[in-house]
């Protein structure tokens, strides 16, 4: 089984998936499922939501397989679909926070060293605590690398709204990081 899986490259698997081979679909899914669930976890409130996003995302991956022309990495293509699937999920299930009060709040300054102790799970937990709109924008901008213009298009908001939401998201996250690091510092001392 393992031998078989190693025998196929991603390209051959993709071609087989285009031909509608179920076995190839499963192998491709196994290849990317864990990594893509890691992506979805950032957009979701919890693991269950993340798995729903992953499921919808992969259904779309296999349905749109013929749209992949080999331009760019396949993983990047799948990842983009997962992101869009996650955003769509939130459009359906959550009320997006459109209005953002742009109160000029003093952003807390966070010492990068304070974040060194936080691992991926801690950061995911922080992101998941954000309001859905903030979470989406922060993910898209800070981690996926989308521009505000792109985020505005994806989320159907203005560029300014994207900027303000990102700013708000960062402030909240920094506060949370400080709290967490203070807690751990306090516990250590």
């Amino acid at each position: 089984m393992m031998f078989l899986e190693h025998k196929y490259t991603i390209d051959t698997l993709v071609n087989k998936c285009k031909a509608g081979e179920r076995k190839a679909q499963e192998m491709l899914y196994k290849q990317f499922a864990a990594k893509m669930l890691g992506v979805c976890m950032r957009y979701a409130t919890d693991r269950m939501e993340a798995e729903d996003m992953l499921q919808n995302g992969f259904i779309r991956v296999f349905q749109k397989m013929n749209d992949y022309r080999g331009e760019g990495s396949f993983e990047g293509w799948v990842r983009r679909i997962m992101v869009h699937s996650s955003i769509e999920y939130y459009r359906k299930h959550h009320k997006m926070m459109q209005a953002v009060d742009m109160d000029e709040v003093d952003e807390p300054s966070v010492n990068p060293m304070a974040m060194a102790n936080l691992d991926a799970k801690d950061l995911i937990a922080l992101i998941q605590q954000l309001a859905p709109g903030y979470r989406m924008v922060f993910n898209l901008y800070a981690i996926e690398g989308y521009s505000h213009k792109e985020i505005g298009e994806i989320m159907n908001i203005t560029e300014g709204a994207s900027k303000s939401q990102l700013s708000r998201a960062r402030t909240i996250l920094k506060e949370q990081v400080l709290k967490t690091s203070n807690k751990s510092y306090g516990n250590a001392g």
Partner: protein
Amino acid sequence: MEMQDKEFDNIFSSKLNDFEVEPSKAVWQGINDGLGNNNRKKVLPLLGIAASIIVLIAAGIVFFTQKVTVVKPRVKNRVAVNHPAKTAPAVIAVKPHNTIIQQSAIAANTVIKPKHLVKSNIENKSAKYGVITQQPIIVQPRQQVLASATTTKNDMVKHVVIDTASMIVATPVVKTDKPATLVAVVPDKEKPTDTPPVKKHRIHTFGDMLNIVIAAVDKRKDKVIEFSNTDGDESTITGVNLGIIKIKKEN
């Protein structure tokens, strides 16, 4: 400030970029369902269709084979009635036997009385056994003549008649010749003519006419419905045979 934000974002990005979580098995199942690849979804309707086809075929087989099995015996019966000599006696055996047994019973009843007497006589006068050998010779040809007459109707009759004859043979021997022969012959003559005369009755009543019509259709001994042929003007139902339910009024 901006650098700080960038740095902040990068920490998240670098730490979460390789973040992996193994999904539960339900996700792949859900994907299959979503793609319509699921074996259950594809196979179950096919199974349903296959099952319904099998049920229909099975029902068809049961229905048609039942018809065939019903038809075959009817054909045999008809053949048996029309050409008794040609058909296998094993098949016909059932009905003729019954009638013959009843007929022979009539003979037996009449004969039984002398039989007992004969037996006692035989015991007492065992010396007269020599006569026995003469008497059967007289009786047997007569019986055989009767038997040969009946062979045209049924082979079975022949055998049975001979049997009754042999029974009767023993009875008349000792007592007297005349009653013995009479007893033996008279009922035997009546035997073959026992059923036909009923048909030959003249039509006196509406019931008689119905009996004839029914007899033409229903070949069984006990007809679907039988009317009395003894009453003068009025016809009364004397027998009903609906297969399961049989009612017969003894006259």
